[in-house]
């Protein structure tokens, strides 16, 4: 690993991010990444965060049209309430703050505590839980579906709504609508290695793949012998469609897990488009790249979001962040 010691990985990365992105205010000590122009007068603010190791999520999505602030935790570990409260205080213009929370026990508990503390400080807080991963089927007997690729859709679209001046309840409702209409499935071709552990977090013999993997290398539905890009696309798209049963059109995210070359990811995207066409699904917008990663895991995930005119307009609205940029 290209690190100094595991203990300083997140702080080192934040220093490096600060030096690369003068348009962000990076508080390395307190681990909060904020838009330099925050708080933006009369606008609802969006705060997200989660364990590190998924970059560019979330810090790379801070900027006009998307997040107001992000709180990076230790690698694969939810951030702590102090960070979230600090972030909320830094970005609140008085119009309130939406917490975008991926559905993991740690994230949920810490953001819940933070919401209480922030409200004690007079900040109006709403929360939206992202839980799009169809690999977790039996959500009654689990911590529920995990938050993965749809987080990008929620942050982008709700960010655009906030940017357009929508009030907190409206931004929250839109975020919720995006999440409810999004589903993902991820596939790992190799495990990832966390700095703290220094060896792969799970055993995945080469020549096998894990279908339905989570973004921390959590196991999925099943392990199989290696499949072709075509077969993986069939499996992933069908798993998502079966759960979502979307009306047309949809947004599509073909996301790399970190170590899959862009060359392979584009090829996989071609296969995903093929299945979608075969299933008569109309794609209104698409993103291919490494956006919600799992350190050095090889693999990819597919996220679909059923949209309407309003959501598509918000998706297309300008955004300017280190990780996602268009229209400005």
């Amino acid at each position, binding site marked *: 690993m290209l690190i100094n010691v595991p203990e300083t990985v997140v702080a080192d990365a934040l220093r490096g991010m600060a030096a690369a992105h003068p348009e962000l205010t990076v508080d390395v000590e307190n681990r909060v990444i904020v838009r330099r122009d925050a708080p933006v007068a009369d606008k609802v603010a969006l705060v997200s965060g989660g364990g590190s190791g998924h970059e560019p999520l979330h810090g790379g999505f801070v900027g006009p049209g998307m997040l107001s602030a992000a709180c990076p935790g230790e690698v694969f570990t*939810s951030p702590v309430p102090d960070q979230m409260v600090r972030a909320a205080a830094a970005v609140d213009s008085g119009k309130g703050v939406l917490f975008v929370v991926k559905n993991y026990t740690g994230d949920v508990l810490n953001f819940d505590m933070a919401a209480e503390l922030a409200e004690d400080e007079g900040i109006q807080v709403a929360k939206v839980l992202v839980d799009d991963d169809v690999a977790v089927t039996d959500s009654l007997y689990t911590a529920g579906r995990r938050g993965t690729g749809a987080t990008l859709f929620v942050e982008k679209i709700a960010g655009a709504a906030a940017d357009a001046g929508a009030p907190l309840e409206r931004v929250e409702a839109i975020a919720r609508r995006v999440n409810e209409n999004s589903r993902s499935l991820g596939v790992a071709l190799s495990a990832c290695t966390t700095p703290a552990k220094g060896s792969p977090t799970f055993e995945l013999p080469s020549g096998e793949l894990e279908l339905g993997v989570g973004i921390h290398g959590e196991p999925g539905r099943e392990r199989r012998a290696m499949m072709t890009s075509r077969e993986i696309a069939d499996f992933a798209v069908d798993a998502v469609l079966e759960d979502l049963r979307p009306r047309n059109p949809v947004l599509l995210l073909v996301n790399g897990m970190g170590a899959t070359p862009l060359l392979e990811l584009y090829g996989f995207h071609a296969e995903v488009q093929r299945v979608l066409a075969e299933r008569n699904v109309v794609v209104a917008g698409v993103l291919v790249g490494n956006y919600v990663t799992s350190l050095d895991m090889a693999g990819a995930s597919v996220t679909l979001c059923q949209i309407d005119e309003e959501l598509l307009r918000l998706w297309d609205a300008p955004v300017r962040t280190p990780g996602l940029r268009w229209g400005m």
Partner: protein
Amino acid sequence: MHDVLDVLDGDFFRRWLTTAASAVDREADRLTELDSAIGDADHGANLRRGFAAVTEALDGSDATAPGALLALAGRQLISKVGGASGPLYGTLLRTTGKTLGDAGEVSREELAQALRAGVDAVAKLGGAAPGDKTMLDALIPAVDALPASFEAARDAADKGAEATIPLQARKGRASYLGERSIGHQDPGATSSALLFTALAEAAGGAV
């Protein structure tokens, strides 16, 4: 063998927490190993970071009341750990501490009662039930046994942690594994057992 101590003062609680911190530091790799089997391989690092902060906070504080010391430790865990275990262990110690109030000394029975309130708060926060393969499966039997003796609590926690092996997880990350979570000891239950081992050690009992 019966407990060495029955009146627990601030020194005792400091001893407990620093003993727990050493145990967590020593066993961090094992905790992470367990968490890598059914979680995300960070439980050891999480608690090590948290308890290091607890030790530092204790050194920097002149609090002597048991309740204040536990609440201080709980706040540190909440502020420093993150993940699932940070808020849960933080809530455990904070609620226990608050329940003890500002008495300068407490009895083992009072501690047991306060810990029960702490464990209830953990159950409420995390929404887990006994048998869900979480820290509760060590915490609940330990607290049940504490009125008997520190050693009994320690042994109950150990047994509870071991008894998570055949269980299927229903909460936390391990739940995503479904049946594949069976056959592995829960990392959180294991660290809970460490806390009760440290408690017995702090009380001077056999370890």
